[in-house]
Each structure stands twice: as C-alpha cells, then as structure tokens.
C-alpha cells in the first residue's frame, strides 16, 4: 500500500520528505522497543528513537538498496543507544543496582489484578531482569537483544557492532551466561519455592 522500504528510501533520496515520513511512521515502534530494552527507561528510549531517525536521514545515501532497511535502522539504533548509555552510565548504574522501587521496569509491570503472591513474584522478577540486563556490558546487551528479540544473525550483529563473528558469538554467549546466573534462582519450576526464595521488594 505504502510501497516497500527500499522504494521509500529511493524517493526520500530524490527529495521526497513524505517518503521518509512513511519510514519513520513504519519503524518508530520497533526502534522504541529496541531502545527501551537497551537503555532501560522511556525517556532515554524516546531520545534514541529521534536520534536514530535523524542519523538515518543524514546517512540515507549510504543505505544499500539490497539491504534490509529495518536491519540497517536497528544498527543505527543500537549505536545511538550505546552512545547514550556511555553518556549516562553512572545514573543508569545507580538505577540498576540500587533496587529502585520506582524504576521504569517496576513501574511498568503489567497484569491487572493478579494474586498478591504472583504480583510480588512478577514484580521481583521484573526488577531482577532489569538488574541482570543492566549488569551486562553495553556490547553484550546489544548483541543479546539483537540476537534474542530481533532474531538477527551473528553476521548482522557483528556488522552492527563492529565485531568479528567470533567476538559477536562470544558476546551473546557471555550475555546469556550472565543472565542465567543472575536469574535462574528466580525462575525455579515450583512457583511457591521461587516466591519464598525471592526477597520482598519491601525488604
């Protein structure tokens, strides 16, 4: 209906700003999800989304029409996120490590009217997931998110992050290994056991 991404890029390069608007409207939500998972908070994710499209616009002539525009955009989004994380790392570290009750991850926890013990467990788990993701290095987090959520290949992730395939694979492996170490105690098979082990957020 609105033409393929590649067609829109070609039109935008020919000076049709409306074509770029279509690309922004088409990809904003997925870039937001990526940016939120990278940065861990909505405000930073919003900033990353905007910066990603501004950079994409500026670099549009470097996009190769045979490539996938979404993948190319993700690459820019990841690097914008990494830049922002480097800039804000001390704050985000404090947010992640101080077990904040008011952090985005906890505030955004869903599930209307769940049983109280389930709410406690899911809130604790959400907090632990945010903490575990926050403990990954930026490169590990980026590699993991692109592999796990975006299903990008090791080669694509390597290109996005400027890493060789072996280093990329290793980053994904290290990320999963760390997540597993941090989260396995919280995802035991028996919910009651997990609930009793999980410290209360109020403690």
């Amino acid at each position, binding site marked *: 209906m609105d033409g393929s991404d590649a067609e829109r890029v070609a039109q935008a390069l020919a000076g049709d700003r409306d074509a770029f608007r279509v690309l922004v409207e088409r990809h904003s939500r997925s870039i937001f999800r990526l940016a*939120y998972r990278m940065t861990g908070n909505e405000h930073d994710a919003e900033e990353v989304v905007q910066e990603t499209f501004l950079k994409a616009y500026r670099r549009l002539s470097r996009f190769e029409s045979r490539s996938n525009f979404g993948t190319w955009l993700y690459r820019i989004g990841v690097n914008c996120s990494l830049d922002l994380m480097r800039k804000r790392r001390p704050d985000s570290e404090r947010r992640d490590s101080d077990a904040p009750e008011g952090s985005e991850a906890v505030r955004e926890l869903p599930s209307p009217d769940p049983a109280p013990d389930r709410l406690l467990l899911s809130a604790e788990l*959400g907090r632990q997931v945010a903490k575990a993701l926050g403990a990954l290095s930026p490169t590990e987090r980026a590699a993991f998110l692109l592999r*796990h959520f975006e299903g990008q290949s090791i080669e694509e992730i390597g290109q996005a992050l400027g890493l060789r395939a072996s280093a990329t694979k290793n980053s994904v492996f290290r990320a999963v290994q760390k997540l597993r170490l941090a989260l396995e105690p919280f995802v035991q098979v028996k919910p009651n056991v997990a609930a009793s082990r999980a410290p209360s957020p109020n403690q």
Partner: protein
Amino acid sequence: MTHPSEEQLIAYRYGDVSETQERAAIDRHLASCDACRTSYEALQRVLAAVEAAPVPERDASYGSRVWQRISPQLDQRERLDWRAWLVPRRWVAVGAMAALVFAAFLAGRFWPRPTQQESAGPIPVQVRERILLVAVGDHLDHAQMVLAELVNAGATETLTKGGVDISFEQQRAQDLVEANRLYRQTATRTGDSTLVNVLDELERVLVEIAHSPAQLSSAQLNEIQQRIEARGILFKVRVIGSQVREREKSAGQIAPRGRS
C-alpha cells in the same frame, strides 16, 4: 554424545549450531539425559522471563508523533549537510573539542587548589569542585567499562581459535586518552597525587589499547589482558572511581542548591 557444554546449548537454542548432525545429536541427547534436559529447560525459562519483562507500549500514532518532533530538525540538518558530507567526522571532532575546551576551562580555572582561598567568582567553590568531580567520575566509569570488556573478552574457547576484534574498545580507548590527559594535568596542578598516579597509569594502558592492532590473536589478547591484570589497573580505577564518587557526594551535600 557427551554432555553438550553451556555454550553449545546456547548456540542450539538460537539455531547457531552449524552442523545438522550436531543439532540432531543434541536433540537425541536432550531426549535421553535428564540433567542436560533440566539444564536446557532452566535456560529456556530464564530467556522466557527476560522476554516477558514488559516494554511500555506505543500506540499506532507514535510514528506520527516522532515525525512531528524530528521533521523541524531535518530542515536544520539539511542546511548543514553539505558541509557534513565534505568533512564527515568534523562535527564529532568539533563537539569533542568543545567539550574538552569547556572541561579545560573548568579544570584550569575552577579546580580548588589546596592552599588557595575561595575567590569571589560567580559559582561557589564547592559547586565547581562537584562539576569537575562528576566529570572525572564519569571518565573513570567509562575507562573502567573499556578495561572490563577487554579483560573479559575471549573468556571462552570460541575466541581461542579465531582471535578477537577489539576495534570497538579501541575506539573508545582512543576517545578517552585526550580527556584522561586533561584530568591528569588538572590533578597534578592541585597536588592530588593518588589521582595523578592512577590517571597516569590509566593513560599508558589506554594508549596501549588504542595503538594495538584491531584484530588480536588469542595470544596477543592474553598478553594485553595479563598486562592490565598485572598492573591491577582495573582495581585501582574502581577504587579511585568510588573515592571520587564519595567526594562528589560530599561536595553535593555541602554545595548549596539552586541559585542561592
């Protein structure tokens, strides 16, 4: 087959097991080995928990709102673009230099000297000190991140075969060298010898990383890792970084808030 390693199980989970035979062998093994199946199921549960962590929803009109916010900036960038194309890295360099000049200004002018009385400037001394402590703290955090990633790189067998690309860390080390020099000079002027020593050592390590080949063999990587570890630089940076953060907090408590 023997029990698959954790690395193999993770690769299997993501479909990164190269050989069909190897995949089939893991399939069969998981069907027959309780311990490995339990381990694999635990891995699946962990990944499912990460996946289930909520992401705030954006509605269908979100893209339009993003467009409204960025479109005025596209006009500005278009006007600048003809220069940017001629010197693609120039704006980055200008930005970095501006930050350095600003930091140099703050550093040279505002870092409180031990013997100096507070001058009647527009910004109270404690606030000035805090500004610089925040900058030094951030710098040490960034350096720590680069060092930690290098020390942890190649922790598995995958890398011992193929070597490692450190171009990402290298670029970041390069970016940090100039700022490090500036902070070291400032600390020298103020007589903060502990900070000077750590920054001095850090600078040598950063320069070494920046000047290493981007592609390292496992042996070269080990060599760098050993040098970093032998110097204990990561530990020193962590210690001095937390001391700086403590001083930053104290300065924050002393410093008056707002305009008063």
